[in-house]
């Protein structure tokens, strides 16, 4: 691949990515966000986070063995540990370790 093409592509990808991140800040730089925007700002993060969980699971093949069982168990471990002990690192470590053992040795 030509280096001029690669460099051009990287610069464009950089600008396009940065644009998506800076748009809201440009829109509300001078004027005060309306109550509607503040309402979205307050409630959207929770929705984003929940949807990101499903996004992270989007490539799981639910219809073939092991039917996403490793992912379901991993997510359940994270939920149970976090609700019980409220220790983020413990929940994430244990869930990841469980998942790794399951996909490497069990399924």
């Amino acid at each position: 691949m030509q280096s001029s093409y690669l460099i051009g592509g990287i610069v464009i990808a950089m600008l396009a990515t940065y644009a998506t991140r800076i748009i809201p800040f440009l829109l509300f730089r001078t004027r005060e966000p309306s109550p509607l925007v503040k309402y979205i700002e307050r409630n959207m993060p929770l929705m984003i986070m929940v949807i990101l969980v499903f996004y992270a699971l989007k490539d799981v093949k639910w219809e073939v063995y092991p039917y996403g069982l490793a992912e379901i168990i991993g997510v359940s471990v994270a939920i149970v540990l976090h609700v019980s002990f409220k220790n983020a690192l413990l929940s994430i470590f244990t869930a990841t370790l469980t998942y790794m053992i399951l996909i490497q040795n069990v399924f």
Partner: protein
Amino acid sequence: MMNFFAIFKLTIPVLMGYIPLGMAFGLLLSKLLIPWYYAFFMSLFIFAGSGQFLALTLFASQATILEIAIATFLLNLRHTFYGLSMISAFKNFSWKKHYLIFGLTDETFALLKTSEIEEQHRERAYLIITFLNQCYWILGSVVGAVLGNVVPFNYEGIEFSLTALFVVLSIELYKKSRLHQPFFVALIIGLFGMMFFPPQKMLILSLCLAAFVLIVFKRSMQDAE
């Protein structure tokens, strides 16, 4: 004052996710016979996980500059929602907030939004979190590009730490939120999106749908407060 180690601890789940994901990116880059230092520059200047994978795919098919611009913009459009949720948080920060905006990936956004840091230390802590995350990402992608397939241990599945991170942060935000319906609405939309939306458009479609429902049902959600 929050010390460096306390901040580092917050980023460990991202470290566990970004190193293997970055390595997968570097590996793909080396398979396309692109020199390894492009992995470094892409992770330094673009800093978007799925965006960089997409860029490689587009490079491989010799896409035009316009195609690269449109596809990248659409893929990363979800970040607009992240920025929207950070307007007040970044409001009183210095010019350095431009680095925070540049570095607002899925994972950085998740950490910043849920971290509980006293206001006077917040800007510094946010900068360190974003910087550390980008370091992990750069490190992973360069190692992947240089080493290729030679990896000392079987780390298959370690990227699940990002899934677990999102699960944990959802619970944290749920506990903090005054309104609880958005959580259940998002559960339904996420499940629906995962099952029925095309995978590569699932995130942006689900987020738009979520914003739409949030706005349309504003009154009934707030009445329940």
